Each structure stands twice: as C-alpha cells, then as structure tokens.
C-alpha cells in the first residue's frame, strides 16, 4: 500500500513528476506554481531523476520547449499559473493541434487585473478553448492523482491530446494535507514508457509536423482534433479504473455527492467541493435534501453525466470561479445550459464566487442552498431575490448597495 505523508499540492506534483519517466520538464517560475519546478529541479540536481530540466526564459518558451521535445519523441511536462498560462496561449493551441500528448500542472490563479495573485479559475478558463483536456482537483491528493493519470489519458492512441491537471492556487497548492503516495516504481510502471507512433528523431520514418494547412484542409484537421477530445471521455474513465486498481482511489468524470434524492444541487469545480460537502453533511442532518456535483473532467465536458445527475433536481446552482465577461454568466454556467439543452430539468442559477481569492466559507454555500430553496418555493418567495440579484446570474458574497 502507498506511503502516507504530509505534503502541499505543489510538493505532491513535484514528487509525481519524479516518478513519471519524463524526458523533459521546461518551466518558468510563476506564483503559485513556482514550487513545482523549484522542488523538481532539486531532484534533478540531486541525481534522483534523469529528466532534462530546462530553465527557460518565459512561459511561451516553456511550452515551445515542451512542444519541440514531445515532437522529437520525448515525454514532456510543465507547470504554470495565471499570466504564465496566458503567455503560453499561442503555443497551447499549437501543441494541441499537433496532437502532442504533453501534460501540465496548472495551479489556478486570477488573471490580472486588477493585480491579484490569489486563486480563481480565470487563467484556466482562458485556456479552456485551446484544445487541452482539463481536469480539476478538489484537494492535494486528487491533484497528485490527476497529474499521474494525465500522462496515460494524453498518450492514449484514441486521444493524443495534451492534458492540463488543474488545482486551486494556494488553497490546495500550498496547504499541507495528509496524502497517500505511490512509489516512483509504481508510478513509472503505471505510466509506462512513451512510445509515439511518429516522432521527428525517428530515423526509420521521416515526418514533417505542423505544415501550413490551407483552407481545403484545416476544417478536416479540426474535426479530427475534436474527435480526440470526444474520445477522451471514455479513456478518462478507463484510466481512472486502472488507477483505482493500483491506488484504491476511484475517480469518475464527475463526482456525485448526495445527489440521489437531492432537490437542490450545487455544481462546482475544484476545492470548493470540499467545503460544500461539509455544508451538505450539516444540512442533511437537518433533513434538507441537498447535494453536489463536482466536475472533474471539464474539457471534454461530460454533458450526459452532468445532465443525468442534475435533471431530477428542482433547483441547481452553478458555481463559476471565473467572470467570463459574457454578460450572461460564467463559463461553467454556459456548459451546464448546453448539457441541459432540450431536456427541461431544474431551474439553473449561476453564482460568481471566490474571485481573486475571496474566501468561500460554509455560510456562503449555505446561503446558496437557501436561495435555491426560495427558487423552489416559487415566485412570491423569490421575487425579492430576483429584484436584488437577477433571475439567473448572481454574485456570491459581494459587497453592494
């Protein structure tokens, strides 16, 4: 069985990196992911791994170095946050469209501005359309587990799509938790060796990657890329099953908590799921039928699983930790609306919450469940609330007149 230790999410990721048979890690320091390359480069310096660590001059270069390495035939990974991820933006598209199965530990943080170094999902949501698979972790254990599974998901022949394993900046990246670790040997055996079908350093078969794609071809390649993303849904479940056999820890595309008979459900990404579970325990003790859906795989979006989990509820709160500036709610809300398109189902309300590291406390989550109760009770009860906060697009714990 695994070894138990007290580690932060960043320490856990650096340890996972050591066991993953990585050929290249290229990274640049950026709060709050800085510790990952910091700890990892110590392992390299101490000779504990033979991975080539490239201390690049920017995140654009970090992603470019990973792309070059992976195209050459190496297994490459990086870590970043916030403006670092934003600086990678161009290359994220390049790597994903080249179908290079790289991995990234993304430690989510607000994007400036105004300047802020704390957690929200503004950075990762900015990368949600780049063609990378995105997994979101509730705690350090899940961040560690997701990052290890990411390699196998990305490299699956049906998928060949890079994976971003996201965890919440500071909340899980810096908080020290009890976690269960696998040995380097176990991780190494689980991920295996990288054996690409085609790579630039293959003397036997010459290949040119990333040629100019004229109007007669790009649409076909985009459809092909979308297929890899869609095929990732069953592969994420398959890899999770293999991981469960190794670790005893089970993960799905989503995690349902007390949804069976729930009338009111919260849909959430990341660490707030932990806070919500505690609130649900308290409210359930008082007989309230409340539940939670935690989205683990955000890209690809498991629409069918989400719809199945929430369609019998009466009111659902979608928790968005990124202001998409669409004027009609956050990005997760949009995805949930697509998932429910044509299915009828519950009243959906979006909550913008926790932006720029704003504390998310149990009483805030309780307030959301209270709002949902009002939504269920019908117009008279909710009239005041709608007048104050609007019918479906609201801010949680916002100071206002």
């Amino acid at each position: 069985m695994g070894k138990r230790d007290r580690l932060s999410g960043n320490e856990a990721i650096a340890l996972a990196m050591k066991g993953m048979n990585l050929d290249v890690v290229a990274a640049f320091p950026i709060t709050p992911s800085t510790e990952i390359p910091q700890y990892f480069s110590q392992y390299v310096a101490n000779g504990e791994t033979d991975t080539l660590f490239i201390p690049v001059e920017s995140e654009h270069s970090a992603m470019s170095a990973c792309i070059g390495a992976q195209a050459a035939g190496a297994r490459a990974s990086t870590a970043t946050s916030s403006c670092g991820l934003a600086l990678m933006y161009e290359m994220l598209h390049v790597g994903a469209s080249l179908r290079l199965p790289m991995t990234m530990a993304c430690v989510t943080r607000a994007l400036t501005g105004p300047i802020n170094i704390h957690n929200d999902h503004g950075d990762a949501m900015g990368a949600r359309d780049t063609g990378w698979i995105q997994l979101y972790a509730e705690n350090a254990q899940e961040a560690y587990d997701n990052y290890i599974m990411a390699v196998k998901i990305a490299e699956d022949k049906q998928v060949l799509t890079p994976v971003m394993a996201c965890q919440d900046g500071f909340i899980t990246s810096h908080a020290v938790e009890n976690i269960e670790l696998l040995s380097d040997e176990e991780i190494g055996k689980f991920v295996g060796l990288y054996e690409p079908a085609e790579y630039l350093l293959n003397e036997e078969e010459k290949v040119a990657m990333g040629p100019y794609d004229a109007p007669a071809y790009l649409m076909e390649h985009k459809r092909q890329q979308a297929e890899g993303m869609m095929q990732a849904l069953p592969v994420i479940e398959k890899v999770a099953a293999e991981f469960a056999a190794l670790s005893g820890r089970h993960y799905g595309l989503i995690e349902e908590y007390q949804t069976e008979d729930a009338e009111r459900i919260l849909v959430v990404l990341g660490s707030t799921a932990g806070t919500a579970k505690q609130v649900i325990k308290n409210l359930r003790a008082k007989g309230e039928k409340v539940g939670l859906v935690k989205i683990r795989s955000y890209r690809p979006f498991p629409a069918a699983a989400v719809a199945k989990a929430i369609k019998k509820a009466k009111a659902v709160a979608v928790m968005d930790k990124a202001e998409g500036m669409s004027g009609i709610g956050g990005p997760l809300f949009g995805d949930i609306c697509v998932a429910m398109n044509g299915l009828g189902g519950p009243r959906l309300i979006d909550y913008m919450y926790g932006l720029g590291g704003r504390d998310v406390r149990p009483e805030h989550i309780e307030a959301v469940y209270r709002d949902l109760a009002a939504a269920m009770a019908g117009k008279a009860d909710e009239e005041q609330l709608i007048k104050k906060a609007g019918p479906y697009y609201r801010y949680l714990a916002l100071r206002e007149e």
Partner: protein
Amino acid sequence: MKQKGIEINDRVSWQNITLAGAVYGGGTAKQFATGDWRSMRPVMVWEKCKQCLLCAPVCPDSSIPVEAGKRLDFDYDHCKGCGVCVQVCPFEAILFKKEEK
C-alpha cells in the same frame, strides 16, 4: 500526393487525412506545383550564358537544375520569381519579365 497509402487532396475526409497534417517522407515539396505564385518570370538568354553556375546555388527553391556541369532551363513548376538569380548573373543572361497569364 500519397501518404502512407492515403491520397492527400481536397477530397480526403477528416477520418482519412493524416493526423494533424503530418507529412511523411522527405522532399515532398516537389509534388506541389507552386510556380503559379510567381508574378515575375526569369527568362534565359542562352547566347549570353557562360555556364559560370553562379545562379544555381543562390536559388532558394532548387529551381535551376544542373546536369553534367551545365545548368538547364528553369523549373517553372516551382520557381517563384524571386529574382535572386537575375541579380547574381554577371552576364545579363537572365531577363526578368512580368508574368503573363
């Protein structure tokens, strides 16, 4: 062009096109006639040519074939009309004319 048994043209489906547009093998540019990009056309004046061969190595597109120590006429399927050969010729043996369709 054929790639791993797959014909690459504007009729190939997304299921059958090579992954991410990868091009297999080497020297495949030869299979694409790109001469129609040309707006200016280099034209040989053979009686002025001394076969000094200064032109062939400066061509960025291998469009001046050389055989048995002598240059041949331009490969107009691939020459893009950059005019470097015109500039480098010491004998004014290459004219540079407007391409007419």
